[in-house]
């Protein structure tokens, strides 16, 4: 399994001027990103929606790469989004999925059939033209440049360390450095969106 922080450090080297939705990797990405005004560190507005949000942003900004770090729990909740994304076929959308096989924020309970789901196969079956799966940092590192050079949508399943949280939600240290509103405003300003 891959350490999410290390994976994101590798990705940052190839990020370019892509918009990044760090999703469940947000707590590490805030320490890695060198372009925070192109990030959308929204945390978790509602589970199951990140892929759809990423699609909307990719459709709205076709000239920018949009990179999402989704999670397997979210993908399972909103699996039909894969069909919509494949149909819309945004050439600028790169859909990475951090699969820690569990619901880390609720204490690490396994997701259904955690060890036996091939999400890259599901994405290919839904119509994504390019799908990959990695469970080592080396494998990811060796392929990330080529992946980002492909036309999207691309789906990449990544097995990562669980990083289970056993503190009650109200006692957890916040990793966000900006409110959601501020992060959205900063992104829109960077993209030249007014009104």
């Amino acid at each position, binding site marked *: 399994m891959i350490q999410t922080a290390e994976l994101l450090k590798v990705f940052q080297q190839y990020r370019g001027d892509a918009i990044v939705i760090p999703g469940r990797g947000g707590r590490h990405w805030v320490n890695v990103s060198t372009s925070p005004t192109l990030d*959308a560190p*929204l945390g*978790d*507005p*509602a*589970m*199951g*929606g*990140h*892929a*759809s*949000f*990423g*699609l*909307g*942003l*990719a*459709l*709205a*900004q076709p000239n920018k790469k949009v990179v999402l770090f989704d999670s397997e729990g979210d993908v399972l909740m*909103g699996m*039909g*989004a894969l*069909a*919509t994304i494949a*149909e*819309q076929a945004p050439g600028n959308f790169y859909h990475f999925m951090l699969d820690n096989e569990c619901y880390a924020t609720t204490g690490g309970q396994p997701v259904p059939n955690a060890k036996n789901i091939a999400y890259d196969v599901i994405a290919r079956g839904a119509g994504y033209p390019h799908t990959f799966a990695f469970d080592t940092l080396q494998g990811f590192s060796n392929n990330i440049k080529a992946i980002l050079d492909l036309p999207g949508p691309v789906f990449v399943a990544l097995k990562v360390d669980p990083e289970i949280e056993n503190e009650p939600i109200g006692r957890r240290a916040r990793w966000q450095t900006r409110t*959601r*509103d501020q992060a*959205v405003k900063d*992104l*829109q300003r960077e*993209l030249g*969106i007014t009104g």
Partner: protein
Amino acid sequence: MTQAQEAHLSPETVMGEMKKNGVTHVVWLPDSETNWLYLLMKADPSLHLVAVSREGHAFATAAGLSVGGKTPIILIQNTGLMESGDSLRGWGLGLNIPVVLMVGYRGWTRHGVTQDTAATYTERFINAFGINYYLVENDEDAARISVAFEEAKKTKRPVAVLVGDEYHGFNR
């Protein structure tokens, strides 16, 4: 006793309101009554249709479009709106998305007694979320759609249009 409507809401009128308000993307899932509207939307090159497989996805998709500078409308049935509760909360309200929800009011019977619990709970559901809404039953009511767009933009919140015209999708 059910009071029948004497006029109807034409899909051309709905299209006109969408275009008047600069809608770029229609994020939708067909309801029991949007057939002809769909055909009109599909034929219009200025509208980009995004078909979702469950209505909750529409809120997150619309949020992404709106954050990215586009003007989406969400077109779903009241049943799907109710299914979408947490997505409406988190992606719609939580991100202050100024989006109009065009909601087919299945089961609406004006002054009659409805047999359809989808209608029974629709306004209760919307009120629970504090979302303002306008009822549109026929072409004469259509100006309320623009009111909804203006309000969504001004308040940076979702605003609903309840389409209470039975068979509106099948009217020509």
